[in-house]
């Protein structure tokens, strides 16, 4: 079994589907011979040809529009938005068409497509290369929004996304693209797109997170363990549709919940989780739900990005606050 990084797992999943499903094509800027700016499509054009791994003109709206056109006509396109910060020209197509096509036509036309986009801060990138705007898409009915946090989940979830009969936005936390290697078998086994994953079991507090913040969350849980606090960690993975059952089940056990996200706080995925806990799980809670998030500021250029992003200390601070309530 090969040990791979997250970005290699992404490549592996696409390669698997290109090999097993003729209707799968990959398209985007620089995805061809160059293999993508993050190397996510490395070797695919060479292996499957430039008719399957397609370099497009530099036009994001066109990529999204053509992806919808391909998907409605029997193809399974995987488009790459080079960075989440460049997804905005695609927004109209995603919200007004990909999300609606099935409903609008009563199922006559569907959009089994994937749009992949690397997202998030922490790699000292230029302006518009570091944002986390997943909640904008999670707010949109008709699409699924998936964010892996490990190589194996990147592989299994991307397989499921490509096979999904509905449109999936697959956001890849680029800060952890190369962080860890994990043994991932290239067996074509997909992961479910409708559930959260309990990464570590614990009894005192539930830490809910997704994407790159898994790194800080695990580090915080390790530090808490040294203090004698047992933290359960949940990787949300699919933020839309959201599997609240797993989160409620965990909070029923621990009585405490801290949600950690890199995105700004206001009207975000953490808002939805906290609201749902208040609505459906209030009596399971021994302490207020706390959130550790990016600030409601513009994502700063990289000199300040470290101060923007939730740190282990910020997570520990909030966990200690909820632990103080008895």
């Amino acid at each position, binding site marked *: 079994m090969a040990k791979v990084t997250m970005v290699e797992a992404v490549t592996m999943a696409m390669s698997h589907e290109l090999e097993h499903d003729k209707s799968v094509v990959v398209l985007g800027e620089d995805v061809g011979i160059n293999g993508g700016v993050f190397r996510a499509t490395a070797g695919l054009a060479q292996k499957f040809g430039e008719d399957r791994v397609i370099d497009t003109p530099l036009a994001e709206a066109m990529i999204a529009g053509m992806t919808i056109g391909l998907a409605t006509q029997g193809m399974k396109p995987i488009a790459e938005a080079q960075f989440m910060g460049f997804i905005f020209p695609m927004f109209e197509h995603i919200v007004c068409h990909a999300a609606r096509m*099935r409903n609008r036509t009563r199922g006559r036309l569907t959009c089994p497509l994937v749009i992949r986009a690397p997202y998030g801060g922490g790699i000292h990138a230029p302006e518009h290369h570091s944002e986390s705007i997943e909640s904008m898409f999670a707010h949109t009915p008709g699409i699924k929004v998936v964010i892996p946090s490990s190589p194996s989940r990147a592989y299994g979830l991307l397989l499921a996304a490509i096979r999904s009969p509905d449109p999936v936005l697959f956001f890849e936390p680029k800060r952890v693209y190369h962080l860890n290697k994990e043994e991932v078998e290239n067996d074509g086994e997909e992961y479910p797109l409708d559930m959260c994953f309990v990464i570590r079991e614990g009894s005192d507090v539930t830490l809910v997170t997704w994407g790159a913040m898994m790194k800080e969350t695990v580090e915080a849980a390790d530090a808490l363990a040294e203090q004698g606090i047992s933290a359960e960690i949940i990787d949300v993975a699919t933020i839309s549709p959201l599997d609240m059952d797993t989160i409620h089940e965990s909070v029923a056990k621990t009585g405490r919940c801290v949600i950690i996200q890199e995105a700004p706080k206001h009207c975000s995925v953490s808002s939805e989780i906290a609201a749902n806990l208040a609505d459906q799980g209030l009596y399971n809670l021994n302490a207020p739900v706390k959130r550790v998030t990016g600030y409601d500021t513009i994502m700063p250029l990289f000199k300040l990005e470290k101060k923007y992003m939730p740190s282990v200390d910020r997570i520990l601070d909030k966990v200690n606050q909820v632990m103080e309530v008895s």
Partner: protein
Amino acid sequence: MTTVASFNIDYLQYLTPNGDLVGDKKPTVATDFEHLKSIYELMVLTRTFDAKAVALQRTGKLGTYASCLGHEAVHIGIGAAMAEADVFAPMYREYGAQFYRGVKLSEVLLYWGGDERGSDFSGPQHDFPWCVPIATQCTHAAGAALAFKLRGEKRAAVSVVGDGGSSKGDFLEAINAASAFKLPMVLMIVNNQWAISVPRKKQSQGRTLAQKGVAGGLPSIQVDGNDYIAVYTAVKAALKRAYEGKGASVIEAITYRLSDHTTADDASRYRPDDEVENAKQFEPIKRMRKYLTNQGQWNEQLENQLLSTCKVDVDAAVEEYQSASKLTVADMFDHMYEELPHDLAEQKVYAQSIEEKSNG
């Protein structure tokens, strides 16, 4: 200085407003009278339908409706030139093309009557539904064309925008994509001179809109959009190129929006009446009738028969529309995903309980 590129835009017309056939090389369709009579009948049916739809809106029996008055030749010309296997990506008033392709009159009414089932229409099941966000259908058509090309299918995609839509990025990006990928595609501009209240001249200083296709190196022409024979011939030729792997074309059809933009619009606020009156002498149905009459193919008796048949057909469509089964709140949920996610399934149950209470 040397010239590295130059271009010209041809204008195609066969049937003059007086119903005279002009031009050196006349296409065979110009004398295929059985075909032209059936086209004329569909043009009149479309206009009868259109008037009825506006009347239904005025009497509160239909929502906002986008009229196609004056566009009959260009719309039906597109529809008739296309093969069933081709994919059509309309905007939202190309009923003539869609009727030709098998969409039912009642389905158009269902859509504008606020019912999604209208877009689950008859005719080629691969055709795109009405597309309200302007010009976005052009890149969808490009994607469809790419699918055909990748699979080696002898099919093409046809998109339609208006003069206003030709200003949008998606239209220009689709031209560029059609060029870069050499797509089997026809990009139609139905230039009806008005984008709601904004006249053609305010969209662009360019002498033609067709020339936007020149930027992508695409064969680009203007046709008289009120001349069925010209539209049909131009679209047929462009499709032939597409099937032969020679790439995409741009066709600007010059017509005139004789109606308001939609029933929610009042064009008299911004458009001089005499301009509309003047445009009526160029409209498509009159000239086709004159031509067929001059050729001894049409007469008053046939005309009267046709008008009564159209009335019967339109009344039947209205009846079908009005007797459509009632939607329930579940219809909002059932086509969101192939399989309803857990949380949405809960919302559906809740919505149904509320619906039941209000029914009870």
